């Protein structure tokens, strides 16, 4: 019992620190990839291949002066980045990233590589994603600046619009796996069809996966849907007035949200830690590879596609994505009824 508790605490700390470092790594990956896509070199001076650049950035941000506009609301201005970062971190708590393990016999009973095994995990992620909008909206409002306010308003409208498609794409996977627990959903994707096609939900739900990823990109405010911080129109959007570490917290939240969306997509559509060649105990390697591939896609897309126009974003969300996800859900439900899951 005690060892299990200690293991749980260690695992929680590990996930927290790993998320922090994944954000740092993503900053480096983003800058290097952007540079390579634009025929530049990018950061290569600090450390080998510039790998220490994110840490140099963090140190720089720590020593910067914390500014607050005189007309800003002091409480909410301080609270907004905290809400953003907290929501980003807590969403990952229910994401499983590996099969049950005893850590090479270190523990008496096997334990799940997951901080909290909630039986409504999918809904918890959805709930926390819907809470993260408050950080951005409040940042926009409390700054008392027109650019920030417009960024915050855009963000809330965008997130409300895309949350529906996001939720409906989730629902069609829930129908297939007949569960709300992410662990059960991942286990439903083990094994293969015809001996070589992995039983991943992406092969039954290709449209669902596309809808989920599109809505996920919109939810994390990434290009080509990065309207809340559209530089050419809004300076920097909701975080225009933020500096130093409170700016860093928004930055952190954005990258961690990307990691979480990719991890959830991996669990729901790409079979989680299941994959060929590796034994079950090393499944987390597969998990990391899949999440990495999705994150690469995120960055690749940002530096390839131009930003949409705002009315195009709204029209796309309500007139194309939402009807598509409703049809996808209906077809999935009919299929599950007909074939019996």
């Amino acid at each position, binding site marked *: 019992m005690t060892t299990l508790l200690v293991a749980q605490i260690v695992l929680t700390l590990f996930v927290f620190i790993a998320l922090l470092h994944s954000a740092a790594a993503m900053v480096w990956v983003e800058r290097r990839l952007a540079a390579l896509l634009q025929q530049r070199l990018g950061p290569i001076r600090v450390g080998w291949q510039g790998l220490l650049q994110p840490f140099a950035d963090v140190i720089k941000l720590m020593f910067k002066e914390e500014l607050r506009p005189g007309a800003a*609301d002091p409480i*909410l201005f301080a609270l907004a980045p905290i809400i953003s970062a907290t929501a980003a971190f807590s969403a990952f708590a229910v994401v499983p990233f590996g099969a049950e393990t005893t850590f090479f016999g270190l523990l008496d009973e096997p334990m799940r590589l997951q901080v909290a095994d*909630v*039986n*409504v995990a999918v*809904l*918890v992620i*959805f*709930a926390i994603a*819907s*809470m993260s*909008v*408050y950080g951005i*909206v*409040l940042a*926009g*409002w409390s700054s008392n600046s027109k650019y920030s*306010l417009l960024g*915050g*308003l855009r963000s*809330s*409208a965008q*997130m*409300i619009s895309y*949350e529906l498609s996001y939720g409906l794409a989730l629902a069609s996977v829930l129908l297939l796996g007949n569960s*709300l627990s992410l662990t059960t959903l991942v286990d439903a994707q083990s094994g293969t069809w015809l001996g070589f096609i992995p039983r991943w939900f992406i092969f039954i739900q290709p449209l669902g996966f596309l809808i989920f990823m599109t809505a996920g990109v919109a939810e994390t405010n990434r290009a080509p849907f990065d309207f809340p911080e559209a530089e050419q129109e809004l300076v920097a959007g909701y975080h225009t007035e933020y500096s130093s570490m409170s700016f860093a917290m928004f930055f952190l939240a954005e990258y961690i949200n990307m990691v979480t969306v990719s991890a959830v997509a991996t669990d729901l559509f790409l079979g989680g830690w299941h994959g060929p060649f590796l034994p079950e105990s090393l499944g987390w390697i597969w998990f990391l590879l899949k999440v990495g591939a999705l994150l690469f896609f995120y960055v690749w897309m940002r530096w390839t596609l131009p930003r949409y126009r705002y009315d195009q974003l709204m029209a796309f969300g309500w007139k194309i994505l939402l009807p598509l996800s409703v049809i996808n859900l209906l077809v999935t439900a009919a299929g599950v009824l007909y074939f019996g899951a």
Partner: protein
Amino acid sequence: MTDTAFYLFGAIAIGASLLVIAQRNPVYSVLLLIASFGALSGLYVLLDAPFVAVIQIIVYAGAIMVLFLFVVMLLNAPQEDTEHDVRMHPFRGPGPMRFGAVLALGLAAELGWALTRTPGDSAPFGGTPVSSVSAIGRTLFTEYAFAFEVTSILILVAMVGAVVLARREEPR
């Protein structure tokens, strides 16, 4: 442990709800209401109903309150009413205030009656465990199907009404 959590969440819910009406700034009111919903959701978890708890967050804190905040921010009213508005408000007259006092007394009496009822008078809901999502779904679509469908029509009517009211007459 459970008792401490219950009193903690209960205190947060009541305290935040009281502060909602005590705030001058509507944005703070909205945020305190969200805090109150969060505490309620914690109480649902203690009642072994995680599904209801998460739905509470998604629907109320996540969706409805975002719209509230949206409206409050668009109006951008730093204070709800000016001094003049408060004095001239129609509810400030002696007649409406007496009527309000009667209503408040009625509510207090009802609350007192509900609290003193013996537990035997109130039957637990249905008898199916509320924690299971499939049980909730089955009950909702069999036993309470009529109420469920009527509610959806009610919401549709409200939506159509809002669209009709908000639409501007186009000049011919």
